[in-house]
């Protein structure tokens, strides 16, 4: 048995090794090798907690604790399983780009951070991993930093996520002072303030309302980064913590916030996805929506549903990003209206179709099971159930719109040629992922054995199928047959209203800048105030200089007068 932290070692060792290598390709191979070794080590790691003392302040000991429980194992498995795919896909993706080395170094640190996060057993190791995730994701989103929008997106992402990081740190401080321990296993409950701060941390990381804007912007990063970010890492961290610390949240009565904010986010994201034309942003909105649904399920205690959704979503989301990467490469365009000819490459087309069906929630794909288990858990609450049903229709609608748009045919020979000549590493990883996707659907039936309750009610299954079919039908009528004309204005107003928060966001940023400008002025005034103190003194000095006019009789007069004044004052006082 290998102690849990050792699973990070191949990745950590690969870092300097990759740093020393000159050839880009060999850097890639080293990284892929490291990720495979880590994956191979996975079955052999030992369960249970492990403590490494880091530093102590006076009598207080701060240590890094790792822990491998079922939950940790699931996340670790997902992270390590997908990372070789991502790494291999990237070899092809970066074929025409020279920056292999920087990319793989950043990617390796990102994976390391995520792996550490998966086995975190106390808040210190959690925070270390959490913050490293924020920062490596900043580097990765801003990978093409010379593009203005990429730099902007990266900055935006880290700025928003950092709010959560500090909130997490503050809640760590509060928890430490309240209970003197930071190990998850030893914590029974946490103060309400701490749990609210944790909530902020989760919401920023998982892009929940009102922090939902950074994730769609993060599409500026390279495609494999998006695939990794959206399937297993980074954004999943928030949800994972919510599941891991569920008992603590439950005890401090903050669960309802998960549901409220989760459903709000899901609705906003769905509305946004309806009108979006950027190929990756549509997928990003769908991720935000899925995260919202997971969190809302956690909010009503449906941990099993959330966890299965968590697991299942990884595969089809990665798959869809992979295939959209191929489409972007083939068309050299990112707008779905200008992307053509997905059907030219059958393998990719079928894989993508699998992914779309899974995302929409068609039986028998894993998306179906996860949607049904979530809607089943909401069946007692009519309002929430209605909203979730609408979201299901919307999801099915926009993802088929996406598919119809990218699979429309073209006469352009170059495009069909470039579909066929896509690098093998990209094509095969995509195809292989679709197989994994099917496997993940089977896992559903064994999921209950992990100890997480799953319910699959027939009524909901039927309703879900109907809803998804409805979404598909509308989409088909609108975009293929063009029988129904959806008023653009209606969609726009919906989207506009959902983007209102984004505008509010920009305004508040402007407001902060305005305040800062004001404070800058205030600072100048404070500065001037002290300077004026000096000027006033000098003014008095000038007056004193005027008294001394050089006339000795005047001096004598002053002397005599002041003598008289002095005597009078002293004698009569």
């Amino acid at each position: 048995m290998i102690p849990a932290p050792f699973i990070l070692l191949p990745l950590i060792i690969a870092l300097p090794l990759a740093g020393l290598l000159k050839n880009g390709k060999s850097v890639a191979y080293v990284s892929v090798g490291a990720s495979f070794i880590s994956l191979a080590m996975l079955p052999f790691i030992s369960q249970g907690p492990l403590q490494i003392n880091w530093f102590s302040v006076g009598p207080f000991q701060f240590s890094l604790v790792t822990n491998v429980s079922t939950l940790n194992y699931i996340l670790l498995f997902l992270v390590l399983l997908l990372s070789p795919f991502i790494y291999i896909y990237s070899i092809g993706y970066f074929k025409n780009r020279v920056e292999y080395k920087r990319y793989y170094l950043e990617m390796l640190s990102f994976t390391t951070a995520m792996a550490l996060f998966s086995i975190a057993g106390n808040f210190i190791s959690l925070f270390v991993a959490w913050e490293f995730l924020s920062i490596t994701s900043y580097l990765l989103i801003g990978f093409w930093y010379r593009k203005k929008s990429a730099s902007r997106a990266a900055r935006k992402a880290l700025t928003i996520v950092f709010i959560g990081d500090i909130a997490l740190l503050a809640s760590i401080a509060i928890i430490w002072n309240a209970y003197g321990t930071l190990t998850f296993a030893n914590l029974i409950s946490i103060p309400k303030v701490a749990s609210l701060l944790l909530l902020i941390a989760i919401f920023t990381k998982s892009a929940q309302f009102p922090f939902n804007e950074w994730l769609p912007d993060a599409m500026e990063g390279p495609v494999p980064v998006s695939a990794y970010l959206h399937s297993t890492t980074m954004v999943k961290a928030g949800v994972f913590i919510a599941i891991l610390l569920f008992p603590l949240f439950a005890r401090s009565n903050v669960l309802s916030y998960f549901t409220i904010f989760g459903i709000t986010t899901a609705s906003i994201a769905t509305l946004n996805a309806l009108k979006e034309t950027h190929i990756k942003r549509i997928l990003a909105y769908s991720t935000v929506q899925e995260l919202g649904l997971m969190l809302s399920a956690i909010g009503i205690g449906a941990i099993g549903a959330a966890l299965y959704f968590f697991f299942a979503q990884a595969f089809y989301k990665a798959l869809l990003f992979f295939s959209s990467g191929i489409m972007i490469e083939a068309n050299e365009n990112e707008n779905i209206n200008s992307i053509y000819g997905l059907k030219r490459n059958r393998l990719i087309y079928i894989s993508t179709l699998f992914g779309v069906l899974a995302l929409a929630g068609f039986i028998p794909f894993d998306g179906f099971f996860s949607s049904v288990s979530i809607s089943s858990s909401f069946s007692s609450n009519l309002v929430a159930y209605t909203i979730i049903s609408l979201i299901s229709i919307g999801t099915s609608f926009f993802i088929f719109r996406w598919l119809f748009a990218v699979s429309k045919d073209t006469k352009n020979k170059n495009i069909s040629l470039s579909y066929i000549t896509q690098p093998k590493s990209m094509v095969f990883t995509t195809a292989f992922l679709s197989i994994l996707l099917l496997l993940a659907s089977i896992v559903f039936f064994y999921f209950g054995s992990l100890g997480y309750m799953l319910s699959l009610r027939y009524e909901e299954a039927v309703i879900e199928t109907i809803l998804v079919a409805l979404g598909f039908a509308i989409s088909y009528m609108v975009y293929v047959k063009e029988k129904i004309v959806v008023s653009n204005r209606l969609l726009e107003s919906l989207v506009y209203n959902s983007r209102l928060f984004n505008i509010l966001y920009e305004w508040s940023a402007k407001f902060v800048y305005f305040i800062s400008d004001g404070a800058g002025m205030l600072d100048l005034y404070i500065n001037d105030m002290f300077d004026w103190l000096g000027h006033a003194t000098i003014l008095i000095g000038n007056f004193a200089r005027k008294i001394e006019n050089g006339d000795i009789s005047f001096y004598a007069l002053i002397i005599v007068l002041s003598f008289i004044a002095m005597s009078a004052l002293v004698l009569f006082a």
Partner: protein
Amino acid sequence: MISLFYALILAIAAMFVLNSVARILGNKKIELAISLIFTSLISAVIALMLSEGYSGIHAQFIKLNEFSLLLSLAVSLGMILIHLISFREREYADFSILSMFSFIGMLLVIMSNSIVTIFIGLALLTVPTVFSLFLNSKWVEAGVKYFIVTALSAGLFAFGAAMLFASSGSLQIAEQSYDIGNFVAFLLLFASIAIESGIFPFNLWVPDVYQKSPAFITSMLGGLNKKIGLIALIFVSLIIFPYASKGMLAIFSILTMFYGNIAALVQKNVKRMLAYSSISQVGYILIGLSTLSNYGIASSIYQIFSHMFAFIGLFAIVMLMEAQGRHEISDYVGLNKENKIAAFTVAIMLLSMIGMPFTAGFIGKFMLFSSAVASNMAWLAIIGIINTVISVYYYAKLIIAVYTNKAEARPIIISPSLATAAVISLVIVLILGIYPSLLFGLAQGAASAI
């Protein structure tokens, strides 16, 4: 046992003869040598007197103790420095004799045991100074002004002494006691001395006279004459009228500090600025006096020492600059490039006046402020602090000028006598700052001997 009085008369006569011989020979160096030997001799005689336990027939006029010994040593040293500074001047021959008279006057004030001695001492101090200002027609304006204010001061002093005699029947310092009749006398005496030592509002003449006088006479006015006035103030206010003076001195201290510092802020002429700075220094010294404690007087003595040497040492450089016609602060730009020693001297002396650690000025101010705190007058110390900060502005202006680079800087040569004076005062200021214990104990002994 020899009588001090005769010793002094003999010494003066001897110096006259020797000086006349030297003038006939026309050798300035001999004159300098004679003056130096003379001043050293007098301090040696005083030291001898003290060691033998002086109690002559003049005991009712003159008193010798640790206080007078320490101060006369200081004054002798200061006098030697002034001779070194003025040695190259055309008027040195006459000035050397006149300054010797002033020197005797200073010693009389320091050793005085009676109001009359103080009066004679002050007169003997000021009148030759006035005459030395008449040596050159360029200085006459300053001479006249100085003459008028000292005459006023002498008049007030005589009047005050008469009133004191009328009410107590004695002029012995030790035999005075406080009553309301005496109090008017005290005010008169105080005003007189305030004019002499430049306490606000009796100080208006100071900048004019300091600016118009040649640098070596200014250095004597500010370095010695002013300090002698303060010593007279110690006798008058601390020994004769201790209870009347406590609050009054504190108030005058505050006024003088503020006036000197604030007026100095806007000055452009170096000598005028230093005149105001010396006024503010008097204000600091008054803090120590106003505490009426031994420690306070000791700290005042320390500060008198530190400012005396800083002032005279600084004027050695002012002298150098004046010879080149450089009077304004802006004229001092680039001095560092021209002469490193001169620039360093200016910087250290000014830093000492600010009260930087490791200079004499710091220990002086430290003792002054701590004496105020020890006498439960921390507020006075805080006002002193505020003034110190104000003063940084104008001192820093000069330091900055000295260390600012100038495009064309030709090295200037400093004459050996000026260099000697500058280096001696530099060494004294630094040693008193680094090894304060050298003077610390002596000053306390002197203070308790009064």
